[in-house]
């Protein structure tokens, strides 16, 4: 069966003919604002609600549709659920949101079950498993729900470093040779692994910053004091030449951007001075009003 044909056939416009979109509403779909819906889009109002949740897959979506209507999985009204499912899929497609292939496969399956439900069945086979086209799907839904619940319970268990904490003490001066320092290669391999992972996760962006700036950030931060100001010029390390100055300057900018240092000036045009941000609450609350 051709999935696309099925999808185009659904949803049945005679079911709930009510257009929810007037083009001005801002919808958020998976956190992304959607400014305008296509004018010709048919959206059942209930489908819009569904958008507000995000789903782990077609089974999750189906479970949601069933559960929110307090329906029994074992007696799933396939025609109605199929209609709602297709409406969701249709809107997702209209919004050009990326839809995992599994959703389309499920759409096809639902359509198939629905059509098989319409076929006359031999009488004696009425309650037979083979005879009920829903049975495989029902079992799948039950099993998925079982693990969905298990996952929630697993998450609720007290977990180390989140809910409970290990008690440890440091150890110093172990006799014998300490484990070797990492080699540069080892370090690079480890970082390559992280970056590989990070790029898979795609949301994290590791820019090509100059290490010298990073290093300078650390050393400047370390040299600054929360209670005393230091001359900005003194940090520029003119002895290192132009490049050293630039590196220091960029490091100071970075630290400022990160909110780690603050600037002060006793009067206009006087030397700019810096200190580490964060006045210890107990020690001194040093600012004038």
């Amino acid at each position: 069966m051709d999935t696309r044909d099925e999808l185009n056939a659904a949803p049945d416009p005679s079911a709930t003919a009510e257009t929810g979109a007037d083009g001005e509403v801002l919808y958020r779909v998976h956190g992304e604002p959607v400014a305008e819906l296509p004018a010709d889009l048919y959206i059942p109002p209930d489908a819009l609600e569904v958008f507000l949740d995000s789903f782990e897959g077609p089974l999750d979506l189906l479970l949601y549709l069933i559960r929110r209507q307090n329906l029994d999985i074992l007696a799933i009204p396939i025609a109605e659920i199929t209609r709602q499912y297709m409406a969701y899929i249709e809107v997702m497609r209209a919004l050009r949101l990326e839809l995992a292939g599994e959703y389309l496969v499920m759409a096809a399956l639902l359509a198939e079950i629905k059509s098989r439900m319409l076929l006359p069945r031999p009488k004696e086979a009425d309650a037979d498993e083979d005879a009920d086209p829903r049975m495989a799907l029902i079992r799948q839904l039950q099993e998925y729900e079982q693990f969905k619940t298990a996952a929630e319970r697993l998450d609720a268990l007290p977990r180390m470093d989140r809910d409970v904490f290990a008690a440890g003490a440091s150890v110093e001066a172990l006799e014998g040779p300490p484990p070797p320092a990492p080699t540069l290669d080892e370090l690079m391999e480890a970082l390559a692994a992280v970056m590989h992972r990070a790029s898979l996760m795609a949301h994290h962006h590791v820019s090509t910053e100059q290490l010298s700036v990073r290093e300078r950030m650390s050393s400047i931060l370390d040299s600054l004091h929360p209670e005393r100001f230091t001359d900005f010029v003194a940090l520029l390390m003119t002895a290192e030449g132009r490049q050293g100055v630039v590196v220091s300057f960029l490091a100071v900018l970075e630290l400022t951007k990160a909110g780690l240092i603050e600037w002060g000036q006793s009067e206009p045009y006087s030397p700019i001075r810096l200190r580490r941000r964060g006045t210890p609450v107990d020690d001194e609350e040093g600012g004038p009003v």
Partner: protein
Amino acid sequence: MSESTPVDYHTPAERGDDEQMRAVELALEAVLFAAAEPVAVRELKAACEGLGEIDQALLEQALGRLQERYQGRAIELVRSAGGYRFRVRSRFSATVQAAQPERPARLSRALLETLAIIAYRQPVTRAEIEAVRGVAVSSGIMRTLQEREWVRVVGHKEVPGRPALYATTRRFLDDLGLKRLEELPPLEQIRDLADVASDAGLSLAPPDTEEDAGTGTNQRLDFDTGDADLEPVPPTRSL
């Protein structure tokens, strides 16, 4: 302030105890705090080398004393799959959290569901996980689970392609404070289809595995998680 305070917080029962017991207790204390991870009984024994004959009973007695020693304190000696560890008592969790405000990232539902399927169905292939979830399992999730050392490959299924079989690790149990898989919350029972589809004798066998009919309700937790070195499970002490 400690004017007359004795240096040593011995309880009366210990007064007469021999030096060995005390030495063992301190050695265990050092090792347990240094590790900050569960320490297996085997390693605890190794720590007591040079302190004379250490049998299981003595070791357990020393652990019991240690446990007792921290009664009423902010930390406690607990046991999980990997062995013994000191941890902050849960009523002080909020205090610790307030001091370490960087809360670990929440685990995604996709990861938790995958983990649950591995925990209850192990050993299991990725395709089997995907069959239950109805969606592909991302490589990122499998890698994160292994990186976290909650899941590992325990073998390969003898089917074409020899897919990897995943199982949970001891660390998974340790991180949840469990001694064994059976301590996981039981799976929700799958309601019997027979209730509805009744009389015609519906078979409830899961589609994938013929042999274990009724898998739905019967969690296969008897999988070997490497309990081997936990052997002498000391009966829950009454302290």
